[in-house]
């Protein structure tokens, strides 16, 4: 029997005539795990939000067609009422915490279900032990790592024992080991409760957990057959890698015995590595290992406890961020942190103008970069109305316009579909090859790191370790 039955589903957002879902049909059987993939902005999250009527009740818009859960039409039912049947885990666990400690968070949904205190206690204890998070029970949610946060949210949803579990890009903030742990956990949940699971995802590794993979395109779902596009992009990346290997000579960035503490906890305990001109390097490591802390140290956004950072042989450890940013560009994970201008053109020019690059040169630079990144047609648009992929390219363009010698990108594929992230990486590879710009990406995405990087730096326990250990740990988690 189908647990989810969707037929002829059409939806357009308030104020828009574009149907993001257009005659969509889907049947998901009991105990089935189904993955929905598709380009960024194709409507994956929209589809998921229709299942508990957050669309249209909370987000508005025009929804037509039929959705039945357990054979009953959901039309006219409230989100709270549907909560017993469908639970959604959103992409960012940070903004889903309503309570202050783990136990209260797990109890939150149970209290809303009006369960007796004894039953609520029993269920909370059950999920705490099932998810092996009993040791976190009294911890403040603010102190948890991103992997733990995700686990707690998942546990709090499972305590409500829904029939359908919906996950919106669950691996967006997870490293490969945690991704594999989540895969195992979902399989276990599915086996133990016969739980129906529907999730949207960009990670190729993660969709292996699904019984069925569907592609959302033009508002409809089709069975996934594999398009081979990624292979083409990856092979071009490898070509770039071969060529760039021959051209590089000079060391541009050296990090020597770098120590740094964060919240009184030592995070970096003697980092040593160097980047040469033309390197395309990948900085990898598990959640909380200090990758971003290292990048923030390089940009002097954090002060190191000890050690040196040399750029072109000169110690920049005591330089100001504004000075370092003229040579080292840093692209943050969340593009929204930067965007504030009314036009994309002004946003791209912002950093370069602050650097004192003269207008004539800047205008031609902006045009070239916009063309190369495929955002030339967006230059007069309002950045806040762009898709995540477009915003990210605007971010990168604004950093490139500052003409840096090194560009550091923190999780460049966050929020991007596979094709868009591969396109973006191909552009960076081209830039790296043609202008010799050194690129350092901080990423959990093994496809990008393996496909594009000629140098891999693995951080573990605050130090640089052999990359073989990284792959060994991932292989171990997969078993």
């Amino acid at each position, binding site marked *: 029997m189908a647990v989810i039955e969707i037929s002829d589903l059409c939806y357009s957002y308030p104020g828009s005539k574009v149907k993001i879902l257009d005659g969509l049909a889907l049947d998901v059987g009991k105990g089935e795990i189904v993955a929905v993939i598709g380009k960024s902005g194709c409507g994956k999250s929209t589809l998921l939000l229709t299942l508990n009527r957050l669309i249209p009740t*909370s987000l508005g818009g025009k929804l037509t067609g039929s959705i039945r859960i357990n054979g009953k039409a959901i039309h006219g039912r409230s*989100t709270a*009422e549907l909560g017993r049947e469908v*639970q959604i885990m959103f992409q960012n666990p940070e903004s889903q*915490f309503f*309570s202050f400690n783990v136990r209260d968070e797990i109890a939150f949904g149970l209290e809303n279900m009006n369960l007796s205190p004894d039953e609520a206690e029993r269920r909370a204890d059950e999920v705490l032990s099932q998810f092996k998070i009993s040791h976190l029970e009294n911890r403040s949610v603010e102190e948890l790592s991103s992997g733990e946060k995700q686990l707690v949210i998942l546990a709090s949803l499972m305590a409500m024992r829904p029939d359908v579990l919906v996950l919106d890009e669950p691996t967006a903030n997870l490293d490969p080991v945690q991704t594999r742990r989540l895969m195992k956990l979902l399989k276990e949940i599915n086996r133990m409760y016969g739980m129906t699971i529907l999730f949207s995802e960009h990670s190729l590794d993660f969709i292996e957990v699904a019984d069925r993979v569907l592609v959302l395109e033009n508002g409809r779902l089709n069975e996934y057959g594999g398009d081979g596009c990624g292979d083409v992009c990856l092979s071009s990346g490898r070509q770039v890698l071969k060529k760039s290997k021959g051209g590089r000579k000079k060391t541009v960035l050296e990090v020597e015995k770098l120590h740094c503490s964060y919240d009184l906890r030592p995070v970096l305990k003697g980092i040593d590595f160097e980047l040469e001109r033309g390197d395309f390097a990948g900085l990898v490591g598990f959640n909380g290992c200090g990758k971003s802390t290292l990048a923030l140290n390089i*940009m002097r956004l954090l002060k190191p406890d000890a050690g040196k950072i040399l750029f072109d042989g000169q110690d920049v450890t005591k330089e100001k961020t504004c000075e370092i940013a003229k040579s080292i560009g840093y692209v943050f994970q969340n593009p*929204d942190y930067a*965007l504030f201008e009314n036009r994309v053109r002004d946003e791209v020019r912002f*950093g370069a103008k602050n650097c004192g690059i003269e207008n004539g040169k800047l205008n031609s630079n902006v045009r070239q970069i916009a063309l190369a990144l495929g955002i030339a047609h967006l230059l007069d648009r309002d950045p806040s109305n762009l898709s995540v992929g477009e915003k990210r390219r605007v971010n990168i363009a604004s950093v490139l316009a500052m003409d840096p010698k090194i560009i550091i990108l923190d999780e460049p594929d966050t929020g991007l579909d596979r094709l868009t992230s591969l396109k973006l990486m191909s552009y960076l590879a081209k830039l790296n090859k043609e202008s010799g710009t050194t690129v350092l990406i901080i990423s959990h995405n093994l496809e990008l790191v393996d496909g594009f990087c000629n140098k891999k730096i693995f951080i573990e326990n605050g130090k640089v370790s052999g990359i073989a250990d990284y792959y060994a740990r991932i292989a171990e988690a997969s078993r």
Partner: protein
Amino acid sequence: MMKLYEYYNADSFIHRMNPVIKLCWVVAMTFLVFSTTSLRYLLFIFAIMLLSITISKVPFRMLTDYLKVFLFFIIATYVTVFLLSWASFYIGAVFLIKIIILILVVVLFTLTTSKKEFLISLIKMKIPYSFAFALMIAIRFLPTVLKEVNSVVAVQRTRCHRITFNILKPFESVMSYVPIIIPSFIIIFKRAFELFLSAESRGFSPRTYERKKLHVCFGDVLAVSFLLLLVVGSYFV
């Protein structure tokens, strides 16, 4: 780093007390401390506070951490009062003890009352939902908001942006905050909306908290009786 609202998990008489009664204690203590000028009475209340801390099993170190943070404020107040006149030495000492007691009362309350109990007690005291929830969400989200604003500042610094403050150029000074304020607001609104969606999908209703029952135990009766004695006692000193 000092936290805005820190809870110390322990099983003690004070932890088990009804949060509404604890909140009444805070209000009554504030009233008593401000209404008296008797140094002896204040020292007596201070001794009660020390006893309460011992009973609560909260390490003294946690409370002294808070006192250290306020130390500058405490000393500055004392010096200011002291400098006004030599005769105000006594008033300065009274003022100093008043501030220390108030800090101890409030911090002991937060350390022994979970935020959820605090929320329920506010609702039980007929504080409007909108105010009680706004307060709790603000406490819950303040660290997140600060983190996001710091990230925005960091991003703009990597784009060579400098925040300027020049009293002679007020317009320029205000404009230098625009690249920080706009993205910060956008991010905070997004986070708030995500929280709303998450709460909705988990069937949240403020009524859930109204239905919660708070029990009154023997300890609460004892605490209320003692509080009444203190109030009556303050009339005679």
